[in-house]
């Protein structure tokens, strides 16, 4: 008999019951056990399975009601390959979150909307692995606080308790790439042989080796809502993954996968191949026969699915037009987050730094007006460079051109196919931010070519130029804040709007 951990959803009971008191059980990351909320008894997953099995065997087979307290009703029973939970769908951005207990999803983590609709019972294919939560929610919030406290420019609303309460433990679906190669590989080498007359002769070698190579656990997220720039920056240790069991999900939410698993296989190979070359080069035979870059091509990829733990926080920006995300790795406690700047704090710190520099400069620096002009032109160029770099990144982030998962999800869903920002608009927008810097560059140059004896011309041009450079920092901060935020996910969904 299959041991089925979730109880009968039809009875409004989709939670794991304590074998002792039938109380609700949740996974406790501190204990690494499933713990009863009522009698505080804790079991490892194996112990719980054993207990339930014994209970079922010991109970009166005819007492079906009693049995159902520990197992699924046959009519809705999951097979060993599936698990199920209540699903909630965001009416704004279309995100789906699953829960496995009585907790209702009252807001969407991805867009901040409170329009979450309880959907049907969702059945999902069992993943192969799960990395259980190791960090508690409190530890996650501590890690988040440490991060924002180390960065003094974060706006106040990112630190508020109301914001922190929105942290959610969510299991994200990941594709685990297991690259394998067993058998013979062939590489080519070439070595100087001899000279005869005007010709140099090289010998070509076919180098064969028997290899048994496996890279297990190169993982990428399979939820298009969980952007690659965040998921990639909080790598998981696959060595701690265990065989999937739905009991690990209790007390947490789970996202559903909407990206095909083969999408990242090229990236996985790009990661593994240089390492394979490095390891092969340790074998002197390759060097001896002139093969400097031995490779293993054509890895076989055995895809597996895993559920990896994250604490996810989505905060709407003050203007309500974008989202800042903060993600804490539920296994390692690493934090990946958007760090927008509070402009007032930025000005304050800059003024203090400026004052110190002023006092130091006054000790030794007396610049002729032409050198002041050169300084302003150089700094204007630096700011222009920073600005154009930021614009490139903003375009990439807005279009998600570097996110293979979103590109894949777009192909098969209602996500808008058309470009969010048209090229022309982009250029115009760029100039809107940079015209001050162009004036700051041109003004001193024009003054220089006028050859006036009057210092005030040079000083005037240099001072206006410097003032414009200072003004442009406001735009640079704006650009940075654009980069440290994400457009609302509903803007990518037909019919989505900006409402909360």
């Amino acid at each position: 008999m299959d041991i089925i951990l979730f109880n009968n959803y039809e009875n409004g009971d989709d939670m794991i019951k304590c074998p002792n008191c039938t109380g609700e059980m949740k996974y406790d990351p501190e204990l690494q056990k499933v713990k009863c909320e009522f009698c505080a008894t804790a079991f490892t997953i194996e112990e719980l399975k054993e207990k339930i099995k014994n209970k079922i065997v010991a109970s009166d087979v005819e007492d079906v009601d009693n049995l159902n307290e520990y197992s699924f009703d046959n009519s809705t029973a999951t097979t060993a390959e599936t698990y199920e939970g209540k699903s909630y769908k965001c009416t704004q951005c279309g995100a789906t979150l699953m829960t496995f207990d009585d907790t209702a999803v009252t807001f969407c983590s991805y867009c901040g909307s409170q329009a979450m609709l309880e959907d049907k019972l969702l059945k999902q294919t069992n993943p192969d692995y799960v990395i259980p939560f190791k960090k508690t929610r409190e530890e996650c919030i501590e890690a988040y606080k440490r991060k924002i406290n180390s960065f003094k420019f974060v706006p106040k609303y990112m630190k508020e308790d109301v914001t922190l309460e929105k942290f959610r433990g969510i299991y994200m679906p990941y594709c685990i790439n297991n690259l394998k190669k067993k058998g013979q590989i062939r590489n080519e080498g070439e070595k100087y042989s001899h000279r005869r007359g005007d010709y140099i002769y090289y010998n070509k070698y076919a180098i064969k080796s028997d290899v048994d190579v496996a890279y297990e656990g190169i993982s990428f997220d399979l939820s298009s809502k969980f952007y690659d720039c965040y998921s990639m920056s909080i790598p998981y240790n696959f060595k701690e993954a265990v065989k999937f069991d739905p009991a690990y999900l209790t007390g947490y939410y789970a996202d559903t996968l909407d990206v095909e698993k083969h999408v990242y296989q090229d990236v996985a190979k790009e990661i593994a191949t240089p390492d394979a070359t490095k390891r092969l080069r340790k074998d002197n035979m390759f060097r001896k026969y002139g093969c400097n870059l031995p490779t293993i091509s054509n890895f076989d990829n055995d895809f597996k699915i895993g559920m990896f733990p994250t604490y996810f926080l989505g905060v709407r920006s003050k203007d309500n037009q974008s989202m800042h995300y903060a993600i804490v790795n539920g296994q390692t406690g690493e934090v990946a987050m958007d760090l927008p700047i509070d402009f007032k704090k930025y000005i304050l710190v800059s003024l203090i730094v400026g004052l110190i520099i002023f006092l130091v400069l006054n000790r030794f620096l007396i610049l002729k007006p032409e050198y002041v002009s050169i300084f302003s032109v150089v700094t204007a160029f630096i700011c222009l460079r920073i600005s154009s770099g930021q614009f490139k990144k903003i375009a990439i982030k807005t279009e998600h051109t570097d996110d293979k998962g979103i590109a894949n999800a777009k192909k098969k869903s209602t996500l808008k196919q058309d470009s969010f920002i048209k090229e022309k608009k982009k250029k115009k927008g760029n100039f809107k931010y940079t015209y001050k810097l162009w004036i700051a560059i041109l003004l001193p140059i024009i003054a220089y070519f006028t050859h006036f004896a009057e210092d005030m011309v040079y000083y005037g041009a240099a001072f206006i130029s410097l003032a414009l450079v200072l003004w442009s920092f406001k735009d640079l901060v704006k650009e940075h804040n654009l980069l440290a935020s994400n457009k609302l996910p509903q803007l990518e969904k037909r019919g989505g709007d900006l409402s909360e």
Partner: protein
Amino acid sequence: MNKKLFFVLFIIFTISLTSLAIANEEEVSYEVIIQDDADLLTDSEEAKLKEDMIPLTEYGNIVFLSTNNNSQNQHDYAHDYYYPKYGEQSGSVFLVDMENRYIYIYSDGKNLEKIPSSKADIITDNVYRYASNGNWYGCASHAYEQIYKLLGGSIKKSSSGNNNYSLSSILGFLSGDASEIPMPMKYISNALIALVLGFLTTFIYVLKHSKLKMPTSEEILNNCNIKFQVQNTSAELAGERRVYSPVSESSGYSGHGSGGHSAGHSSHSAGHSSHSSGGGGGHRF
């Protein structure tokens, strides 16, 4: 006996040399020279300017020099005038170069320590407008006044004996510059430069610390299970490739070519080893 006599003589000789040196130093008297070759000053202006210049002789020689004919740069012109006359003695030259329409302050000796090029630039910045208006006396007089302030190097007390807490004196105090030469442009430009540097460094800090850190391939693979076994590597000859490379063009013989020792004339700067001290600054007008 001879040794004692020698010792006494040595002491007397040393003492007399030292006192002679001190006497010489005390005897150095500095001069005022007005060499107005460009005829910019009237006689009365020359007399007035001389009076203005006399207090500066407390610190060194003081020269007013004007010319209509200068093919050198201003520093060399002033140096060539000053050095043959006074050597490395302390002194300053205010030069009006009418040919290049340039005013320049040259200093040497102890005066140079107090009036380096940067300070000379400030003084000429402050007085070039007089020169632009043809007020040569005003130009020179104000320049000497500011040179004097720099040489004196102390904040003037107000008539009541209290310190004068003007903005420039406060800024001067903050910048470690006790002289009271007006330097408004220095403060404005330094303030703007400092602000821009402050904003820029803070922004670069922000950029650096707000970046999402991507793991390297190595870090990703450290989190994976890796099995790597290579066995029975063997190589077999699979063919041959030949490359045309004529012997004559080969680089095997590096002996020929344009080697050899550098027997060319070793030129040395044979010009007169000019006195390298002295410095100054100036301004077009």
